[in-house]
Structure formats: structure tokens, C-alpha cells
């Protein structure tokens, strides 16, 4: 059984068919890459699944349960977490507090008004552990370099200990040199078990190198899906979508 399944999921913005009768599924434990040109509907699909947007029609099943109209809060409880295409961290909190907050929220501790946050050593220890996995530092989140902010963004979502993690372009706006370390960390948290991840990614090098499976979207629909090799060989994908970029990629390899 898939971890997540959407059935005929649909969202229109006026005349734009952003997500059009999409049957999308994610298997337990995989690192799935969701690709497609600008405006293909990738972010909208994630917005629907994570609860930021309500679909016009269709259903979303998570671990077999219907979560289509569940609140964001309840979806997070159920184990769906996400990051955003534009980095969003809490700029005036330091890195540690960014991660601590996620843990407090996960454990229902943000209801506590009359105890000091930094006196909860279990939480600070856990947050430090997460930051260590991500290469730690302790600065105000607002003063970080783009690559570090991207990582912190992922760390916040990861600290929620989700079952399914959506990362919307975790390496965009980051120099090529910084991409590999980010992807290595993401891969290692997926491989270490318990987490299934879906990354939206434009960099085909990254997609082919790191993903187990690829889903290609085009104009609101799923155009193709398969292993990296299958997608690489898929004529329809290479010609209509990735043509130039893929050639360039093969060129670079040769």
C-alpha cells in the first residue's frame, strides 16, 4: 500500500488548471523527485496535500485514511510536513530556537506559558542533535547564508519527525558547490529510515543522482513516472520537457 495517494485531485485557479485530476502516489521509504517546467503545478500539488490549499475535487489518502479536508494541524499530527519554495525560517529566533520551536509544537508543549523554554533540556538536546545532523551553528537565523537557511528550513520540518516530508526546491538559489552537501543530508535522513521524502527539484543532475523514483508533471497533469533510468529513456519526457536540459546533462557526463 502506498503511504500517500491522491485520487483525481483537482485545483483550478480561474482558467489555470494548476492540478488537473492527478493520481499521485508515494511509496513508503522512497526519495521521490517531483519535476516539471515552471508552472507545471508541482507546488500547488504539495499545497493541496499539506493543507495550505483546499482542492476543488478529488481525495487525498494518507496511510489509507482520508485527509482531504483535515486541518493543517491535524495533518502535521498525522505525519505530513513540508518546507517552502521560498525559504521560511523564523528570522529573529536563533537557529537552536527555530528547531526547538518545532519540537515544542510537535510535543504540544507550546501551550506552556509559565516555564522557561531553555530549561527544557530534553528539547534543547534533541534540537542540538538535529542541528548536528545538519552541521550546527548558533546564530540568529536572519543572518545566515542562503545555503544555511535552506538547511535550517529542512531541519525545522525534519524536527517534527514526520513520516512524509515534502521539500519544495531545497537546493534552489544555492551555489552548485553547496547543493551536494544539502542533498547528502536529505538522502541520509531518508536512508536512516522512518522518513519518506518528496523533493521538487529543477536541477536534473540532482534529480538523477539522488532520487529513487521520478514523477514528471506538465500543465497540471502527470506526464510520466518511473525510475531515473526509465525517465532518462522516456522519449516523451526528453523531447517535450527536458530536451535541452537533458542533452546538456549527457554532454557534461561524456
Amino acid at each position: 500500500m502506498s503511504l500517500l495517494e491522491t485520487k483525481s485531485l483537482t485545483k483550478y485557479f480561474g482558467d489555470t488548471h494548476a492540478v488537473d485530476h492527478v493520481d499521485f502516489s508515494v511509496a513508503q521509504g522512497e526519495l521521490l523527485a517531483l519535476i516539471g517546467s515552471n508552472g507545471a503545478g508541482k507546488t500547488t500539488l504539495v499545497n493541496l496535500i499539506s493543507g495550505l490549499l483546499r482542492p476543488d475535487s478529488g481525495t487525498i489518502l494518507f496511510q489509507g485514511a482520508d485527509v482531504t479536508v483535515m486541518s493543517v494541524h491535524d495533518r502535521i499530527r498525522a505525519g505530513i510536513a513540508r518546507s517552502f519554495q521560498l525559504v521560511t525560517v523564523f528570522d529573529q529566533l536563533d537557529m537552536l530556537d527555530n528547531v526547538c520551536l518545532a519540537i515544542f509544537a510537535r510535543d504540544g508543549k507550546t501551550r506552556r506559558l509559565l516555564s522557561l523554554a531553555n530549561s527544557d533540556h530534553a528539547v534543547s538536546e534533541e534540537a542540538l542533535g538535529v542541528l548536528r545532523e545538519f552541521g550546527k551553528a548558533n546564530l540568529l537565523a536572519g543572518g545566515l547564508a542562503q545555503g544555511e537557511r535552506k538547511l535550517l528550513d529542512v531541519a525545522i520540518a525534519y524536527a517534527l519527525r514526520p513520516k512524509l516530508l515534502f521539500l519544495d526546491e531545497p537546493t534552489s538559489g544555492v551555489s552548485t558547490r553547496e547543493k551536494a552537501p544539502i542533498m547528502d543530508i536529505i538522502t541520509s535522513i531518508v536512508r536512516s529510515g522512518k522518513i519518506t521524502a518528496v523533493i521538487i527539484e529543477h536541477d536534473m543532475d540532482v534529480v538523477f543522482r539522488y532520487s529513487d523514483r521520478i514523477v514528471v508533471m506538465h500543465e497540471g497533469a502527470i506526464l510520466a513516472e518511473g525510475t531515473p533510468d526509465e525517465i532518462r529513456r522516456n522519449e516523451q519526457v526528453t523531447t517535450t520537457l527536458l530536451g535541452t536540459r537533458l542533452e546538456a546533462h549527457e554532454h557534461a557526463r561524456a
Partner: protein
Amino acid sequence: MSSIPASPKRALLSAIPIAVILFFLPLLVAPYQVTLLAYGLIFAIAALGFNLLLGYTGLLSFGHSAYFGLGAYAVAFIVKYLEITSMEVFLLGGVLASAAVAALFGFLCVRYTRIFFGILTLALSQVLWSLAFKFYWVTGGTDGLRVPTPSLMGVRNPAGEDKMIFLAHRYYYYVLVIFLVGASVMWVIVHSPFGKALQAIRDNETRAEFVGVQVWRYRWVAFLVSGIYTGLAGTLWVPLNGLTTPDILHWTFSGKIVFFTVLGGFQTFTGPIIGGVVYNYLETYAVGHTVYWQMVLGVVLVLLVLVLPAGIAGTANRLILKLRREA
């Protein structure tokens, strides 16, 4: 929130000397000066509450006169209709009244942010102001309602004791203790997991939602706590002033609360406290020495925005950090 890391020990180390000074001051200065300081501390309590919304939750209320006024009028009604003059009953009544209305107004307002939030809080407070104005047979209209000196913890004021002496001694200490407790509790709140959640909402509402913080609910609780603090301030203010009039429900009074918080610096914990005390002196002396006092305040506000946008405490903080880095 400030970039000087917060620890209870460090906070206590800086708070204790100030508490000691505030404790011994009545022995050193004239009673009138002590009452001015009592006003300042009361405004500081109001501003601490206000700043939980502005500085920590990112919501600018233009309607905090409502809670200050409710605290004050609750006391006046207790005197008028129940003929009770116990300060503890005043506190209970003032806090309950401001909490009830903050719960209701907050429920209506927290779905909005920025200018919409500001306008809605302002409009709701103006409703209370017009009620105080129109129902003059209950509220005394523009004449307001008088409030006598209360008994403190059951102890009556000895007959014939000068009111100024009472206010500058026993009442001052009463206010001081409530201020110290209130400020400590607020310090804990802003450093609690709840306080961190508010700051997360301030920094990025959507992201806060997506770590599982129920944004409206948290804003509502912040609004409630904020209203209670400002209501508590109004409750303490009215025996000191001896009279409550609709002025303190008017939106211009909300403007004053905004003013002292910005004056002190809303991005620091201590800013609103400093702002409340300093503003009170500023207004008192500006009113005493010139008929153009509103212009004086206006000029101060302009200078503040242009020269010290971080306020008094924020600027001091930066200087300290800079000196430390250079040392």
C-alpha cells in the same frame, strides 16, 4: 528577542539593583515625585501587556485604551454600586472585566493582521468610549466617577492621614510589588515555549502554522494576556488618579500606550518599562511648563522615529553590544 542571550540569572542580576533603587526611592525624594513614579510603573505594566502583542506577536493594537479603561471603570462601579473600597476586590473586578472583554474582542480581531487588526481594535475601543460617554447616568459622562483611597489588604487608611502621603508610601509599595511580580511573570511568558510560538508567528505566520502552531488560538491567548495586563494597569491607576473619565477609553489614550512602547523600544523586554516611566515624566513636565505640550510630544515622536528607531532600550542594547565587541 534581543541578541543578548536571556538567562534567568542574568535577568535577576540586572533587575535586583533596579528593584532596590525603586524600593528606597520614597525615602529620598519628595512624595509628589514618588507618585509620579507610581504612575510611571503603572504605565509600564500597561505597556508590557501591549508589547506582548506588538513586539512578540507582531500585532499593533490601537485599542488598548479599552482594557485600561475597563480596569478603571470596573473599580469605579464597584465603589458606586457595591460600596466596597478594598483594593483586592478592585483588582479582582478590574482583571475579570478586562479579561472578559479582551477574550471577546480578541476573538473578533485575531483573524486579521496589520492595518486591519489595528483598525478593528481601534473601532471596538471606540464603542466602549461612546458607551461611557452616552450612558452618563451610569458612568458620570464627561465628569467621570470618583474613586476614594482604598483599603490595602484589609487595612484602612487611618482617618486624617494625608492622601498624598498614603499614595507616596503605602500605595506606591503596593504598586511596586505588583509591578515586580507582573514584570517577572511577563519575562517568563516571553521566554516560555508559548512565547517562542508567538515570536514564530510574528516572524512567519504560515511557517508557524506548518510546524503545528494554531496561529489564531495562540494570538487569542496573547491578546487575552495582553488585555489583562493593561486592565490591571487601569485598575491600579484609578485610585492614584482619584477619578476616571472617558478620556482613558478614547483612542488617543491607546496612542499614548503605543507611544511609550515605541519610545522605550518594542524590540526589547525592558523597552516598554522604560518608555512608560520616561513618558510619564515627559508628559508631566511638558504639561507643567508649556501650553504647547502636545507639540513637544510630537517633536519627541518625530525625533524618535528618525534618530532612535530602536527606542531607548534598543539603542542602549546596541551600544552595549558594540562596546563589548570592541572590548
